[in-house]
């Protein structure tokens, strides 16, 4: 089962609240480890926001996430198969679809990143990769043991900073024991 795998959320829209869970990845295997190698988020905002951008935080969780949409896992090598005990969840089952979780309780924040915003609605809008973990995790092991999980979530100053005109895409790449 060892090997590299990846998953992407569908395009997720802001929920007009100050918190929103975008993606979780969990390992519920008793013996196998999961090493996170890359997590990125990209964002498009179509409405003007003159207040502070929402923060995108990556946290370990208290307990294992539930709910949401279980995402399909892409294989870096078809000779490998991903462990069924590695589970990736997003908030929607279609691009721009209704949000329904996942449910997770954040504990320690391990990384954070400001999102993007447009102060005025003019000119070009870019959606570069924003790292949700330090990029060194491709070489330095960031480990999920049994019943450990990572949560990528929005923390907005006010609900109007995270309107339905915000759009998110989160990608994760990991290695399995």
């Amino acid at each position, binding site marked *: 089962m060892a090997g590299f795998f990846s998953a992407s959320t569908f395009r997720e829209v802001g929920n007009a609240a100050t918190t929103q869970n975008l993606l979780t990845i969990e390992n519920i295997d008793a013996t196998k480890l999961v090493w996170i190698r*890359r997590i990125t988020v990209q964002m498009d905002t179509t409405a003007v926001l003159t207040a502070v951008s929402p923060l995108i935080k990556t946290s370990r969780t208290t307990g294992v996430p539930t709910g949401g949409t279980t995402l399909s896992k892409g294989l870096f090598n*078809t000779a490998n198969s991903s462990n069924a005990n590695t589970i990736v969840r997003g908030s929607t089952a279609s*691009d721009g679809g209704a949000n329904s979780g996942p449910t997770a309780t954040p504990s320690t924040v391990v990384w954070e990143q400001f999102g993007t915003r447009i102060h005025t609605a003019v000119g070009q809008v870019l959606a570069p990769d924003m790292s949700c973990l330090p990029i060194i995790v491709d070489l330095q092991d960031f480990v999920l043991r049994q019943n450990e999980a990572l949560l990528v979530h929005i923390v907005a100053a006010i609900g109007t900073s995270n309107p339905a005109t915000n759009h998110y895409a989160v990608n994760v790449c990991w290695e399995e024991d």
Partner: protein
Amino acid sequence: MAVSFRGTCATLSVLGNDATAQNLFVIENGIASRVNIIVRRLTFGADSLVALASVMNVLKTCRATGVSGGLILEKGKFLGSQTSDPAVVFRAPANETAPITATAGDTLWTQFASRRHTAVEQQLPEDDGERVKTRNLLPFMTDGIADLTVRPGEALLVRVVAATAASNAQNSMQYALRCSWDEDEIATFAISGTVTLSGSPVSGAIVTVIEADDISMTNAVLRQTITTGAGGTWASSIRTGKVGAAFVQYESGGTYYTAPGSPYLQQ
């Protein structure tokens, strides 16, 4: 790893297709290939000419089946002395005249494209020098950390998924994709023979080589057809762990000949 070729490939500028779905680029490793493709870098640029105030479209990288159509792209070389396996093929659409047909599998990576909220000021591309944050269609990681492998008979597809047809407008969106890859040689064993007729070598005979998973000819594929030279000799290769079979056909002066080769060729 035995790298036999290291190359690059770039599409022409591909226009949007006024639809919510569009296949942009395919990396295809034909079933007769003698290499695994290791994708090292896969990125794109997008230029949007017309203002778009709604959400930009996304590009998704996924495995794919049933690939056909499009233009076959040229393969650039890192080293002029190396030769790419002919079964390694890159496709891009020739806009409306030759779209790519493919069935998308599980998504590996997603990336927003680009838009201009209003048509003012400079449109900036992102350069591959900004490797971490550029428009990666696969996760950016230190080279060699994770080999994204495309085996013989497999393909990788990059496609547009747009919220509305307007966000992928032909008169606005243009895409340019580029890829670099290594070809990792697959272990094979050699097979060869000489075609004779009444004890004399035959030139111009056609030797057909078949490769399969087992002696029941499971997943049999045409490996090669070879026309014998003056000495009647032929040579080919079979992937280690697979089974080969060869047979001969020959025509001379209106007389047709055929001969079974040596079936179930195994190492």
